[in-house]
């Protein structure tokens, strides 16, 4: 494969596959507002990479998934790269409107998503308390403690969002709290919520199956939420000069 990659494949025009379009759309999004030369450099480099991967695969299946997997794993690095490029620019050249919009929009989104996950954790805890009140013991000690810890971490994370200086630490708390609360809260809900049981098990034909829509949605959602907060934490880490001020 190396020799073919080095020499270049035979010339051929082809239609970009859907995965390529998604990756390039993501590149356009995170290069938005950057100087044209910087943005075009990154876009051209990714376009070349995707083309080379498609040629190297030579029609074998799974290339689209591989491209999307490479994109998803690189999202935190892309966000950090964008932050670095913006910090490198003189203040007058920064994409102020885009930057202000993303700065305030991302804080708002973090607060709303964090609050929603915290509400989910509190709902699970209230159900646990009701079981304790009725029966004198919790459904599971580990689940109860973990849901409590996750919810408290989320509330701490939300409080840390209030100050710009501690915002990135808040996003880290939100990432950790979301992972714990969504995991153990869902375990709690599967025991104590009839609605959750109906949604979750209603899609299963022959017992638990990781391919069922409910399972994929639950764990996929957990991954997206944690990734979202991790990206924000990276984007909000103050630069050396900002930290010194």
């Amino acid at each position, binding site marked *: *494969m*190396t020799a073919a*990659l*080095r020499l*270049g*494949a*035979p*010339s*051929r*025009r082809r239609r970009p596959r859907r995965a390529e379009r998604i*990756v390039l759309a993501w590149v356009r999004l995170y290069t938005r507002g950057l100087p044209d030369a910087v943005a075009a*450099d*990154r876009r*051209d*480099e*990714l*376009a*070349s*990479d995707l*083309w*080379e*991967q498609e*040629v*190297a695969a030579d029609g074998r299946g799974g290339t689209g998934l*591989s491209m999307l*997997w*490479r*994109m*998803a*794993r*690189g*999202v*935190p*690095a*892309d966000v*950090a*790269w964008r932050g670095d490029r913006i910090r490198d620019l003189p203040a007058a050249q920064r994409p102020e409107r885009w930057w202000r919009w993303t700065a305030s929009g991302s804080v708002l989104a973090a607060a709303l998503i964090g609050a929603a996950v915290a509400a989910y954790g509190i709902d699970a805890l209230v159900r646990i308390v009701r079981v304790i009140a009725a029966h004198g013991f919790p459904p599971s000690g580990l689940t109860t403690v973990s849901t409590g810890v996750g919810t408290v971490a989320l509330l701490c994370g939300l409080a840390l969002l209030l100050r710009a200086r501690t915002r990135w630490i808040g996003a880290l708390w939100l990432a950790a709290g979301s992972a714990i609360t969504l995991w153990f809260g869902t375990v709690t809900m599967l025991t104590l919520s009839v609605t959750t049981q109906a949604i979750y098990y209603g899609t299963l034909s022959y017992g638990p199956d990781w391919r069922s829509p409910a399972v994929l949605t639950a764990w996929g959602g957990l991954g997206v939420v944690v990734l979202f907060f991790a990206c924000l934490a990276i984007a909000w*880490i103050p630069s*050396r000069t900002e930290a010194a001020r």
Partner: protein
Amino acid sequence: MPRRRAGTLLPLELRILDCGLRLQTADAGFHGFLLASELKDTDDAASLTAHGTLYKALGRMTERGLLTAEWEDPALAERAGRPRRKLYRVTGDGAVALAAARAEEPAAPLAAARAARGLA
């Protein structure tokens, strides 16, 4: 947040220098996907290095002078019917940094992995 000590190379950067030196020839550098493929083969990894991780590292290493980067002639790419490639080369400083890192840690994972695969 603790920051990386100046001059310290990350494991990925060491692997990039190692693979880059093997890939580059006297008159040709290497492009991003070629490097990602080589990294995957060398590490026996299940998947290719993520786009963001790879190109962020390449950019950082270019800024530090460990690599040079140059877009190939658009006419060449046009003749080959493909997007033009950005070609990287490991610089003398990059080769020295890799040698120094290897000398500091002779039993580093990189050397161990290469030895296990009969490459060293």
